[in-house]
C-alpha cells in the first residue's frame, strides 16, 4: 500500500511548496536559477509543476514546460523528502528518472533541501511514517 493517497499528497505538497517558496531561499533560488520542476509520480498518480509562483497539479501541471522533470513512485517521493534516498543509487537503479540538462538536475538537489528539512513536520501532520 502506498505511503500516501493522492488527496494527502496533493494537500501536503501544496502546502510544502508554498512554504518553501515564501519562507525559504528556495523561491529566490528558483528565480535566480530560472528553474521550474515537474514531478511525475506513480502510485498514487500525481503530476506536480512548481515554479516561483507555487505548485499546480495534474491536468494544469501537464500543460507546463519545466526545466527539469523527475519521475518516481510515491514511496520514493516520500523517502526522497526524508533524505532516505541516496541519489546516485536511485538514478542508477532507475528509481528516479530525470529529464532536463544534467547540470540543472544537479543544481535542483541542493535547492530542495529547505523542503527536506520541513518535511518531517508534514509527516507528523498527515500521519505518515518517518
Amino acid at each position, binding site marked *: 500500500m502506498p505511503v500516501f493517497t493522492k488527496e494527502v499528497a496533493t494537500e501536503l505538497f501544496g502546502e510544502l511548496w508554498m512554504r518553501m517558496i515564501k519562507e525559504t531561499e528556495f523561491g529566490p533560488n528558483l528565480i535566480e536559477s530560472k528553474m521550474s520542476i515537474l514531478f511525475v509520480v506513480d502510485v498514487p498518480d500525481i503530476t506536480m509543476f512548481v515554479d516561483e509562483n507555487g505548485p499546480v497539479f495534474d491536468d494544469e501541471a501537464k500543460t507546463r514546460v519545466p526545466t527539469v522533470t523527475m519521475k518516481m513512485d510515491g514511496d520514493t517521493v516520500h523517502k526522497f523528502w526524508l533524505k532516505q534516498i541516496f541519489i546516485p543509487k536511485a538514478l542508477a537503479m532507475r528509481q528516479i528518472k530525470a*529529464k532536463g540538462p544534467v547540470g540543472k538536475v544537479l543544481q535542483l538537489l541542493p535547492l530542495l533541501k529547505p523542503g527536506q528539512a520541513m518535511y518531517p513536520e508534514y509527516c507528523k501532520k498527515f500521519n505518515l511514517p518517518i
Partner: protein
Amino acid sequence: MKYFDINLDLSEDDIALRDAARQFAEQEMRPVAKLLDRMSAEEGIAEDSPLWPFLKKAYSLGYHKILLPEYYGGLGLSPLQVNLVYEELGWGSFGLGVLLAVVSFPFYLICVTNNDEMIEKFVKPFCDCTDGSIRGCWAITEPGHGSDVIAVGEEYFESPKMKGDIRAKLEGEQWVINGQKSAWVSGGTIATHALLHIQIDPSKGFAGNGVCLVPLDLPGVSKGKPLEKIGQRDLNQGEIYFDDVRIPKDYMFVDPDFYVEMLDIILAAANLCMSCWSIGLSRAAFDEALSYTKERIQGGRPLIEHYTTKQRVFDMFARVETARAISRAAINLNLNISPPHVEYSLVAKTQCTEMAFKNTHDAIQLLGGNGLTKEYSAEKLFRDARSTLIEDGNNETLSRHGGHILMETYPRAPLDF
C-alpha cells in the same frame, strides 16, 4: 579556422562561449601542447614546465569546471554549450582537453551525491580554484586489466577470477585501500584527488567494485613516473599506488549494489566528452589540410585544384560535419536524461574517434612528406588520434558493449515522461 555552424539557433551566449574557447585553444593550448609534445614525460611535469602556467590560465578562465553546476561555482553549461566548448578545446589539443575534464571528475561525482559536507570540503574549493592547484583524476584502469574493467555483460566480468589490482576493505568507519592503478590514469601523477574504481567484493568479480574519492595527500599514496607514449604526449598519465590508505566510510560513493549501473553512467559521460574533442581533432586535421592544399603547388597549380585532392578534402569536411552531428545528438540526449541511453554515447565515441583518425591520416597523405615532419601539426594530430581509438575503452570493446545493450534494450521505448 572558423567554421559555419549549421545550427542556426545558437544563442548569443552559445556563440560567445564558443568563440572564447576558440581563442583560448588557439592562443593558449596549441603553443603549450606543441612544447609538451616534444618534451619527455618527466620534463612535461617538471617545475619549469609550461604545463603549470597553462593550467593556471585555464583555471582562471574556468575551463576546469565546465561540467560542474553553477550553484557550486561551476560554469553550469547546457549540453550544447559543453559540446561547443569541448570541440574547440579538442581542436586546441586533445590531450590538454582531456586533462581539463578529468581534473573535475571526482568533484562532479560528489555533486551527484548531494553530500553537503563533501561539497563544502571538496567541490566548492575546486570551483574557486584559479591557480590549477586542485586537480582530480579518473583512476579506473589497472595494470592487469585493460578494457575488461568495462566489459559489463560478459560472463567473466562477474567472475571471481577477475581479481582487481586494488582492493578496499571496511575496517570500522574507514575503508583501507591497498593496490595500484595503471600508468594510463590521465592526470595521475599530478593529481591531488582521485575518483577511484576499486574492488570491494572479489566474489562478484568487477561487479563487486565500488567508486570512491581519495585525497592523494593521504599517508600511503605514492605515484609512478609519468608515462612515455606516442600520442597525446601533452596529457600526463601515470600510476598511483596505495599502501594501507585510509579514507572515511562515506568517501565510498558507489558500492557493489549499483556499481554496474553507475559504471554505465560514468562511461556514458566520459564517452560523450571523447566525441566532442574528436570533432575538434577532425577539424584541426581538415583545417591544416585545406590550408596546405591551397598553398602547395604541384604540376603548376595548387594541390586543391587537383581532382583527387578536392575529393579527399570534401571527405574530410564531411567527417567533421558528421562527427559534430552525431556528437551533438548524443550529448543532447544523454546530458538531458538520467540515467542515460548509453549506446548513443558509445556510437558517438566510437564513430567520432574513427573519423578523427581517418581525417588525421588523410591530412598526412595530403601534406605528403611534409605531413611526416614536425614542421606541421598533422603528425601530432595523427598520433593523438591514434590514441583515441584505445582511450576510455578501446573501440572494439565499446562496440561489443553497445551490442550487448542493443541485445537487451532495442528498440527502446519512448520516454514516458
